[in-house]
């Protein structure tokens, strides 16, 4: 990912002007994380998965084997 893309996102979508070194710093973190999560979601996210499932799981987890 290019940091000039981040500059456009910051300015156009978030309304924040950010110097180049801070854009580069953010890009260095976001690019690999974004790639990792995007790949995991493609591989594992089910159509019926729902954020609310998390609270339900905590309330009633499967017992230890």
């Amino acid at each position, binding site marked *: 990912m290019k940091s000039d893309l981040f500059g456009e996102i910051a300015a156009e979508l978030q309304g*924040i002007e950010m110097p180049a070194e*801070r854009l580069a710093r953010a890009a260095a973190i*976001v690019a690999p994380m974004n790639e990792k*999560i995007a790949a*995991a979601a493609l591989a594992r996210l089910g159509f019926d998965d729902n954020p609310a*499932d998390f609270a339900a799981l*905590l309330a009633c987890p499967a017992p*230890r084997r």
Partner: protein
Amino acid sequence: MSGDPLLSLGLVELAEAIARGDISSERVTRHCLERMDRIGPRLNCSVAIDAEAALEAARDGDLRRARGERLGPLGGVPMAHKDIFYRAGRACAGGSKIRRDFVPDHTATVLSRLESAGALNLGRLVMSEFALSPTGYNEHYGHCRNPWHIDHCSGGSSSGSGASVAARLVYGSLGTDSGGSIRHPAAMCGVTGLKPTYGRVSRTGVMPLAWSLDCVGPIAQNARDCARLLALVAGSDASDGHTSAIAVPDYEAALSGDIRGLRIGVPRGYYYELVTPEVKRALDESLAVLRERGAIIVSTELPDMGLINAMMHLLLAVEAATLHRRWLIERPQDYADQVRARIEPGLYYPATRYAEALALRARLTQEYLEVAMADADLLHLPAISIPVPSIVATTEGSPADVAQAINAVTHCTRGINYLGLPAISVPAGFSPDGLPIGFQLVGRPFDEATLLRTADAYQRDTDWHRRLPPTALQ
């Protein structure tokens, strides 16, 4: 050790001594205020102390007890809390310059619950800026200092809570934990800190960092003290829709000392990647104590912790960026650079990534329970993989070195917040330079009772949690 009995009492012991009339609340409150005044500045652990209000409340409690009234389970016990909990009409800065003069119009549910139980509140304790540093770093109020060695980090973000309890300035404190912010200062300062299950404790009136991760929990000398505090603050709260309706057990009743047959999983791999020899030695010794008590130690596997950590990072960054975007536009110069660096990535993730991280959360938590805890009632992990770093090591040097030191601090804690599981940090010894080392127990959802029972059993056979740092004796 010290000959002063007030330094050797824990929170529960003190509450019982006050209830019996062995000591007055006023006397112990004066003792804490004197220590806060004398020792506190060296640790830079408090923001504001309201001595008169605390003494008035103490005297009122003593009068009521003298009239035969029963005080609550924390009757007359001096506490102080991270400067993240709102109190109507009182400033609450959240460790920030931006909110230095913020005065909330309502009081945190947890503060109200503690005060209903009779606790005294001495004041506001230092914390990392906006709860965003695991070391206790704060450019605006100064870094909190470790009571065992003031050139070293206290841990954060509940830095003042860990330091104040360790130096015996107060008998207990509430902190918050979104990636380890209760467990870091507990481990680094040699005290006990519990991050409850997500949804176990109300966050109403608590400055948010990341809604999906934030938890409120106790920091105190030992597991029994944490059990009492958790029982008082836990439970549903109509004003916080994320709190669970699951009944709050009697945590203190669970402290039987009996852990025979309990299966404690030890996942190697990821959690041991950064562990240094002195930390490894303390971890092994703690496992030997638990085994001697009758627990069964089993090796377990782990799912992809890199993915879980990535999910946690994304939720924290996006939610923090959402909360802070206005100030990032209007007052960017009022953040420490280290703090802004943790928020800014959240501006750039596509909304679909955020939704994916939330939608995958149940699946990944289920997988963690099935892989890491399939054959275990709880897990035993390092709290922090490395010895307590110096403040210089986490503030100076190359950005890469600083980032590496900070990442090492959160290596074993941050993923647990994405999973929502309860975890407790327990003192387990000292490094050769005299700084505390801790281990961490991670439990199944809403099974704080097993964590507390195990930590309490361990503390019956060890005295790490009773040791006093040099600053406490001065």
